[in-house]
């Protein structure tokens, strides 16, 4: 079943289009990662699909319903920019949020939930005394109330220490194992690549790329970059003289970057370097990361 289906979603603020014709389908049980530069429209996208912002045009279907009001109880949302009720204590806040979701758990269960997101007993003080990381954690906790089928997390790990980030990533994976759909945005591309089944790259309100991390990398890697360390260093002229199908990209210190059609050409390049009398120390195909793809988008 489809968890989220979006057709030609547009959101304009005056003349400026923050989202411009986005179409997307997220399947049930999937972890979908959304990345984009600041101002690319990630948060606007989340706000429109969660009912915080009315859409300008387009169609949104969540868990089979076009009227979002009918499925709010099945969605758990952590908005990035929402403030919390400062005067409440951690458990009091979760209890209030839980009541809105008809969540019937006991006080002990709320403590377990705080523990699960890494808050622990320390979380039961007034929210105004929380650190930034603790606020993030309790925001995530409130998104998990009411046993939602679809969980939407806007920048869940930004500002968290590495240990807490790992805990949240494990939690996201665990939620997927429980059959839940997770939709998350992040600036941490390494994190998105590690945990997401599919990734969407948003640029200036448009969906620039969409696919699994591997698909995205394969599309980008029609040509392969190879890093070569030789003594003396390999110059542009040396590459031109080689009878291998390689293009000089750049040189830095003892390393030279070449672009080749396929990985199968590497032995031929190695042989050509050795035949030219240079000492070959290293030849490594450079795998592109999601970060490289993102930076080139």
């Amino acid at each position, binding site marked *: 079943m489809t968890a989220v289906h979006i057709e030609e979603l547009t959101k304009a*603020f005056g003349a400026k289009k923050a989202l411009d014709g986005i179409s997307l389908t997220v399947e049930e049980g999937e972890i979908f990662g959304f990345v984009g530069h600041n101002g690319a429209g990630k948060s606007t996208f989340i*706000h429109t699909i*969660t*009912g*915080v*912002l*009315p859409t300008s045009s387009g169609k949104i279907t969540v868990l089979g319903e076009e009227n979002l*009001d009918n499925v*709010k*109880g099945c*969605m758990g*949302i952590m*908005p990035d*920019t*929402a*403030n*919390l*009720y400062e005067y409440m204590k951690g458990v009091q806040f979760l209890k*209030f*949020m839980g*009541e*809105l*979701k008809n969540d019937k758990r006991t006080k002990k269960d709320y403590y377990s939930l705080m523990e699960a997101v890494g808050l622990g007993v320390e979380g039961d003080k007034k929210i105004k005394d929380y650190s930034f990381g603790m606020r993030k954690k309790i925001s995530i906790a*409130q998104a998990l109330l*009411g046993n939602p089928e679809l969980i939407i997390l806007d920048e869940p790990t930004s500002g968290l220490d590495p240990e807490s980030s790992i805990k949240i990533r494990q939690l996201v994976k665990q939620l997927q194992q429980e059959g839940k759909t997770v939709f998350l945005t992040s600036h941490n591309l390494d994190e998105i690549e590690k945990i997401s089944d599919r990734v969407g790259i948003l640029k200036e309100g448009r969906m620039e790329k969409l696919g699994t991390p591997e698909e995205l990398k394969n599309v980008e890697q029609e040509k392969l970059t190879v890093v070569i360390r030789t003594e003396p260093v390999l110059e542009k002229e040396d590459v031109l003289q080689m009878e291998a199908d390689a293009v000089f990209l750049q040189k830095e210190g003892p390393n030279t970057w070449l672009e080749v059609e396929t990985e199968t050409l590497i032995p031929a390049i190695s042989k050509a370097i050795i035949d030219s009398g240079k000492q070959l120390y290293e030849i490594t195909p450079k795998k592109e990361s999601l970060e490289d793809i993102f930076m080139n988008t």
Partner: protein
Amino acid sequence: MIALAKREFFDSFKSIKSLLIILFTTVVSWQTAQYLSSNPLLIQEAAVQGKESEFVTAVTAFMVIALGFLFVFSVSHDIINKEIESKTIRLLVTKKPRSHIMLGKFLGTLLFWVAIFTISYLVTAIIAQVWVTIEYLKMVSFLTYIVGMVFLVSTLVERTKLTMFIGVFAGVLLPILGIASVMVDKWWMTVIEYLLPYTYTEKGFLMIIPFLMGLSFFFVATKIMNRKDL
């Protein structure tokens, strides 16, 4: 919706302003009732004129009519825009439909104000041994109008400081305008007379009109809220 109404109701009691208002209304009612019970002749004289009930409930009615706008605006002016300003509204709208949020808050706020003036009304009624349902319903109708208007202002104006200013201004101006409009015979005053709730309180069954107007303000506020970017 019930959770929101409950929170709104109980949280309203927690501010210094509301505690002072509760203290003020209760003490005034108490003192008046004490005075009336120690001067039974006053009630008897009013009874001769057939105005016993109005006489006994006059203090609470005066507090609602003259100070109601000021009291409600001063405590509840930021009922909606506080949530928008602090962005806590985003936590709410991702969990409940906007209309439920509005209804929950409206009911919680209305109940709070009705409760405060009911206490005042009860104090007088118990000590003076008089209970007048019709006067009580008039008070509820009047309060619904005020709470509805405060709701609309809080939804229309997004800055809490501005609604505080508007509230103090309206709290002083509207009772003066309302009472003057009932007394002055000018066409433009007649328009004001029918827009404000004062005239209806003395017109029998028409006392329901402020109640309906208050509900209309609430519905307009909800319509506006449904279209808002939060």
